[in-house]
């Protein structure tokens, strides 16, 4: 892993690789970090963090070998005890208040336009993990909305509610948002390479809360090298995400 830093500007990467790198940067060394089933990009980010800056991170990647427990009961109580530092979750819709929707499109509960699997787990962990990073692979006005049609988990709670943690960030292929806990709002934090503030505003259904934002540091040569030559084979070994990893993470370093 000795690629010169001055080659970074020339590096090319996919949206998936970018999101995996950005997620890996959220992992802290020594903490327990987890993601649920059907979470291939967070799984990649978790494994990458362990290669980069968090060698002592404890990883829980459900439905793979990186799962220390037999039953979801054990995972449930680990979260309830407040031992989860970081969790990743996605939703069909995410709103400016940090609420996400995994249940349905359409606000009539008895006649949804589309019904999704829903989820108890995220609705519990969102309040228990110290930080939760919300992600969405589609950054459009239909996925990032002012108000979700159905609140599967709420971004904030009144002060008298027993709550151990809050959302910390929203990561999309175009930008990072941070959660302002005092205001209970997502604020644009940084804009990924090649996008402009205007493009982010056009594609976001809620107020960005800022008039300017920094550029997201692009994936480094070290990050991309580790991703492609170390993490990719590990993802293939998981079995669960083998086909996805072969397809979505660029083979060996270009």
């Amino acid at each position, binding site marked *: 892993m000795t690629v010169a830093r001055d080659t970074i500007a020339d590096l090319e990467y996919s949206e998936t690789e970018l999101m995996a790198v950005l997620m890996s940067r959220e992992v802290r060394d020594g903490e327990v970090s987890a993601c649920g089933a059907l979470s291939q990009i967070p799984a990649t980010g978790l494994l990458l963090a362990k290669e980069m800056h968090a060698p002592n991170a404890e990883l829980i990647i459900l439905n793979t070998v990186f799962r220390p427990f037999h039953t979801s009961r054990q995972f449930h109580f680990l979260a309830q005890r407040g031992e989860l530092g970081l969790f990743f979750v996605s939703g069909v819709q995410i709103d400016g208040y940090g609420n996400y929707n995994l249940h349905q499109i359409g606000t009539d509960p008895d006649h949804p336009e589309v019904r999704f699997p829903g989820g108890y787990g995220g609705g519990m962990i969102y309040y228990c993990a110290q930080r939760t990073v919300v992600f969405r692979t589609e950054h459009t006005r239909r996925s990032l909305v002012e108000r979700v049609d159905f609140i599967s*988990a709420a971004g904030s709670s009144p002060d*008298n509610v027993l709550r151990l943690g809050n959302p910390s960030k929203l990561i999309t292929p175009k930008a990072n948002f941070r959660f302002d806990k005092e205001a209970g709002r997502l604020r644009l934090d940084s804009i990924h390479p090649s996008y402009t503030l205007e493009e982010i505003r056009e594609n976001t259904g809620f107020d960005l809360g800022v008039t300017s934002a920094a550029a997201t540091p692009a994936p480094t040569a070290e990050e991309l090298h580790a991703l492609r030559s170390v993490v990719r084979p590990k993802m293939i070994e998981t079995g669960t995400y083998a086909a996805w990893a072969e397809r979505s993470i660029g083979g060996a370093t270009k």
Partner: protein
Amino acid sequence: MGVPYVPVIGLVGTDLLKRRDDMVLAPDPFDGKTVSVVAKAMRPDVAVFHVDKADRNGNVSCGYPVEAVILAEASRHVIVTAEEIVDRLDEKDAAGTFVPSILVDAVVHAPFGSHPAGMTGRYAPDKVHMKEYVAASRDDAAFAEYLKTHVFDVESHAEYVERFVPREWQRPTRAA
């Protein structure tokens, strides 16, 4: 657990909570002010679940890690359907997936009992059948027709297997 309810950290402010009458907000009985969700204990009259193996005394090896043990403990009666009946099972044969016979009322031998869903270690989901099921579930009339064909008009489990489980699955090989 046998308790009437448990506090749960989470779910406050969700629309899920609005639709459930078995989860409510309640103050901490010790400090009188901190609020959390309290979930009513579930005590099903009967639980029915499908497992890998059961023995002649009703001991069960689920075959894969599931919450069936909690389900069996919570339910007043437990009916188990099993891919295979064996002479004797104990906890060593079923690490983490053992349900002792004291919790089980009845065992039914039902090979391919998960069909059209899959059974870890034995067979994968029947994707062709699953597509038909999903299509049928889009409206009530189509679903009633599905149930008539696959459930109500079927005399026995053996007939179901004969008619609806893919022929190639019925050879004694292990898939998935």
